[in-house]
């Protein structure tokens, strides 16, 4: 006796959120049945394993049929094949585009190419995410990347509209797209302590302040490419470290302001020139694509690590950077206030976010 065929189709498509998650997580039907059994769903309805298997198969089939629509979510709303209430559609889309932070951390900043896709089994093994799930997540990144690549207008809004995602998820995708486009290095050992959310925050800062879109919102790729003019202007900041007077003046202003306000004052005073050189050098080198990629590693090496070795607290960092930024305004001979603010605003918030264990 073998069940040759077994289907159940509802006029309103029946989808169990738990099974959907198992499917998204890449469980095979049999594994999903085991998980569900362990979850005690059988006790609910006097069911047995066969019933569970049949139900899981049905649902998996439904999800597979839906997958094509989920890949272009706008279609899901006006397709006729599945009758799914709007709030369920939202849930389906949101979950389909959700990703594992551990997985995205591995591919963040990598080129979304076939080459990377081939490494997915390694990433899967490393992160404990099933290969199937890895593929879905990777394909989602790639799909979103491809679609928004050719669109004008704000990145987050484009993603939200095209993929009908929540604001939060759209922002995360914007970060992924931004990182992939600029190929930021995130995989170095020194950066391992940073989470995806840290990077996503930084990406948001960069998108909002350093891209073309920050000044003009009707250009193609406006939110993906950094503002070339701005990067060029950053070179002007070099004067802060090359001009000896300016450097000393800056230092004394900052020290005066800091004195007595923190325990780490001595370290701050001793390291001022080093740190300032580090930050300004990052700024001046950003015209090189290679250095853009190393932006985060530079921040860690040139600023975060020295501070950490001197045992600065987060509050110390905040205090220091605030005064460091503001004091530059008082420097008479320093003429690049606007660029300085645009640069330091982002650097400040990025470092705040990144300064943790």
């Amino acid at each position, binding site marked *: 006796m*073998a069940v040759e065929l077994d289907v159940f189709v*509802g006029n309103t498509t029946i989808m169990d959120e738990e099974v959907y998650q198992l499917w998204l997580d890449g469980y095979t039907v049999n594994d999903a049945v085991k998980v569900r059994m362990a979850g005690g769903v059988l006790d609910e*309805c006097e*069911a047995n394993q066969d*019933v569970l298997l049949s*139900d899981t198969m049905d649902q998996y089939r439904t999800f597979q049929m839906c997958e094509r629509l989920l890949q272009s979510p706008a279609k899901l709303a006006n397709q006729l094949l599945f*009758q799914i209430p709007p709030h*369920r559609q939202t849930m389906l889309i949101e979950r389909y585009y959700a990703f594992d932070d551990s997985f995205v951390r591995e591919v963040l900043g990598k080129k979304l190419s076939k080459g990377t896709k081939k490494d997915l089994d390694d990433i899967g093994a490393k992160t404990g995410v099933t290969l199937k799930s890895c593929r879905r997540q990777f394909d989602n990144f790639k799909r979103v990347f491809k679609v928004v690549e050719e669109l004008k207008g704000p990145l987050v809004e484009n993603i939200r509209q095209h993929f009908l995602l929540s604001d939060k998820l759209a922002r995360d995708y914007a970060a992924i797209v931004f990182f992939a486009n600029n190929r930021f290095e995130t995989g170095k050992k020194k950066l391992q302590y940073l989470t995806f959310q840290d990077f996503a925050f930084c990406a948001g800062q960069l998108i909002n302040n350093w891209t073309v879109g920050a000044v003009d919102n009707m250009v193609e790729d406006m939110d993906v490419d950094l503002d070339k003019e701005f990067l060029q202007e950053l070179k002007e900041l070099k004067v802060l470290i090359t001009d000896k007077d300016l450097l000393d003046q800056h230092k004394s202003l900052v020290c005066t302001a800091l004195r007595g306000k923190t325990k780490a004052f001595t370290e701050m005073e001793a390291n001022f020139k080093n740190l300032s050189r580090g930050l300004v050098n990052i700024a001046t080198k950003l015209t090189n694509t290679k250095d853009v990629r190393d932006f985060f590693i530079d921040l860690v090496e040139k600023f975060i690590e020295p501070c950490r070795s001197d045992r600065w607290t987060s509050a110390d960092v905040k205090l220091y950077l605030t005064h460091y930024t503001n004091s530059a305004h008082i420097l008479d001979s320093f003429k690049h206030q606007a660029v300085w603010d645009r640069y330091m605003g982002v650097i400040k918030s990025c470092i705040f976010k990144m300064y943790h264990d």
Partner: protein
Amino acid sequence: MPGKLKAKIVAGRHLPVMDRASDLTDAFVEVKFGNTTFKTDVFPKSLNPQWNSEWFKFEVDDEDLQDEPLQITVLDHDTYSANDAIGKVYIDIDPLLCTEAASVISGWFPIYDTIHGIRGEINVLVKVELFNDLNRFRQSSCGVKFFCTTSIPRGYRAAMVHGFVEELVVNEDPEYQWIDRIRTPRASNEARQRLISLMSGELQRKIGLKVLEMGGNAVVGYLQCFDLEGESGLVVRAIGTACTLEKHSSGSLVNTHTHPNTAPASNACNSPSKDGKEPVFGEDLPSSSGPPTPFRNLPTSSSSPPPFSPSKPCSRQSSSSDTDLSLTPKTGMGSGGSAGKEAGPLKTLLRQQTQTALEQREFPFFTLTSFPPGFLVHVGGVVSARSVKLLDRIHNPDEPETRDAWWEEIRQEIKSHAKALGCHAVVGYSENTSICEEVCILSASGTATILNPRYMREGCLDIGSTDHRFDDPSPPSCGFCHIPYDELNMPFPAQLTYCYNCRRQKVPDVLFTTIDLPAEAAVTGKGCLIQARLCRLKKKAQGEVNATAISNLLPFMEYELHTQLMNKLKLRSMNALFGLHIQISVGENMLLGLASATGVYLTALPAPGGIQIAGKTSGDLNNEQHIQSIQKRINDTIAKNKELYQINPPELTEEGVGSPIPEPRQRSRLFRSHSESSDEVSELDLSHGKKDAFVLEIDDTDAVEDIHSLLIDASPPTGFYTCNTETMPGIYNWTTAVQMFTSVRVLRLSNANLSNQSLNKIFTDLCENLLKSFYFKLRSNIPCCLCHLNFTVAVPEEELIQVSVTAVAMTFDKDQTQERFITKGGNETEEQLQFPLELCADSSSTNTQTSSKFSGVPENTIVSSRAASVDYGSFADRCSTWLELLRLKAHTIRRGSVKTSRRTQSLAHSVSSLENCSPLTEGRPRSLRSSRSFGGSSVTMVKMTPLSFLPGTRIIKYLGIINMFFIRETTSLREEGGVSGFLHSFIAEVFAMVRAHVAALGGNAVVSYSMKDCVLMENPNKNQAQCLINVSGDAVICVRETDQEPMTSMTNIGQSCTADGAT
């Protein structure tokens, strides 16, 4: 030129990529009606073309309008090679021909290809301008309304029920034509789809003509079937009930869903016939222009054989069918009995009168399953007939005569069975076939009844009419249970007792019917689905030998199914079956029998005795012990079931006589019986005492197996109820959450040498497991009832068993049930309170005398503990007729369910009803989303249900019948996820196409939906499969009970159109 059809092709979306090079499509559309074809321009390089064509106009006869579908083909333009077809849309324009139905068809239709399934959508507008045609000899029947619903549709009242209409058309099956060898599978499938569409159009038109001839204006309970006979042809046949329907005034429409059709009697009667034809039966029939069926004036006696059967050269298999005829047991169950003493002469008069009206009809059959109150006077029992025929012996396969004669024969037999039960009419009538190679089993079944003659004549529905004195004096809650046949001359052995409700007339010990439970029936507790399942092996054989073998097996199968049903009924402590449907399906090496029905405990019928196990050889100690243990298990099961289904009938008589201090409630009941006739009570006691337990004898291993299988049926888990009728007695507070579903399972029997026993086990497990799956899948809908569970079995190939189920899960409000009990207060247990609504209403409607007595009984009786009892008391004086009381009852119910609808609203707003999406809840989430979604959710939600209503809503318009036939074929079965994946997507596609058609008609729901056929053929080795599905239903617009406007509006379509253009 009586009609102008106009069609406009607006746009397409989600088209498939047809040009691999550009990843785009150059689409254009061909619009075809009859022999005229129009084309749109090519819309180059787009997957979302905007054709915005001119109006294509077809000037056609209305005959063609009825027969032909509008055929829309979407193609990909190719400069160098032939244009590739993307897919087709067939639009049945019949709904536009009825003034009361839809006025325009407009919307997105899935583009369907028989090989690839749905490939994008197309937006189409269709209109029809009809010119008045005064030609008396016209061939069309535009304007006759068709309903699949097997009751008087909501919002209408039946001014006249004319009776049975049937028609049958035959054609060569395109799949078996010589040309099929050279054409593509796609061409062959499309030829078949088109042919069936044409044939059903023709069939509907012909039936419409018959209705017009009878003076009616509608067909209710329209049941259309296909017989794929193979070589000998393709048959489309239909039966229905011709009626003259009138629109209700809107007031009486409110909330008829809990108790269907309680209102019609309260309406004034306008002239029912529009064309001035005399619709009275007695006078209608003798007129020369009768329907073409030739045997109108046959003697109706069952003994005289139909004159055609011996003379027809084609019926060479008559030997088999004759054997069958004589052997087929009369499955009539039930009883009736001589009338009470005072009712005798009246009843005779009534019977004579009804008989004259009905007997002049060729077939006094009705496909309806539920009726206006008072329509059914007595129910005799189930009548059925089967006959085995050989398809390769049809003399002239292209003509319908032979099949007509076959059905004629069967119907005559049904009629004579009904007569034997003392009945003059058959209701809940249906016909079906099972075909395997050249053998065909024709079956028909129905419920023998005596009908109220008032419905057969014009002006009959006026309450004050003189006919009223012929009304049966029995109360409506039990009247239909009273035996219609003569007590001294019973057609089958049955134990009669006096009715437990009115105690005036005789009732049988059990009652089997094919109809829905009458709304006014008094029921104790809840009901449940009861199934009998049976497999019988047979030797493979050919031709006549095969047919004889089958017809020899049939009576045994019927007998066994019947025994199983009876046992299971008793095991659940119930005494009546409703909606009984017995299907016998033939395969090459086996026969499958499946009987489904809903068991209930009718208060009027005696309590069923238990089941007693008896060993054949007494003395063996081991054996005795074994028997005792089985007996104990059975007794435990019965006790458990009683509790589960809340069957707690008042044990009136025994206690009344036996116990020294009767409870007040029982005293009042006793009082009532005494007031009517004292000697009846003693008689009743006698019969009650005599009641025997049902004895099962264990004489061999088979019997042991039988008993085991009896006990194997699991009862539904907590929170679930099951039935195959429209609703479950005792549940009224439905929410608007409905989930219709179709499930198909096919089992391959791997072991070649199976015994009947093990086959039975496999088959039973298959059905039971299906039910278990449903419970599990629908667990989020708890508390809910699976209504209209319709099982269909087939043997598609040797060693394959296919079971398809369509049903609807309806959620009800548990809290409110409890609330109701609480408001009733009193110290009664829940079980006892399950039926008070019925009981009060019934007892008060018997006559004024009783009801006033009832309201006078002490506080803690059922009646007075109800909040509504005051009303009854005060109204009692005015209730001179039970009709008025019925209205009163309807009123109370209406009041009750206002609560329900309010509750539903609050539910709809809460997030907890996620799973149970309803169009009602649609508005809010959409508006929330609209800011972020691209096109917005522009698809109208369409609810589907096999029932004739949607709870919590009111049908404001019937838009026409949906009758669709699809073929799907694949040559890449593995790639589509195997045969399960293939069928899963096909069923989803069929649902989608039904929904799209309904939405395009402006509707938002399908009621009385059914999947008539699901024929699946597979060949996994060749990676191929083919499936045919036929579905039907009534497209409707329904509104929330409190609203006036439709739930969703047509503007959606326009929105989606523009929104998509932007994509």
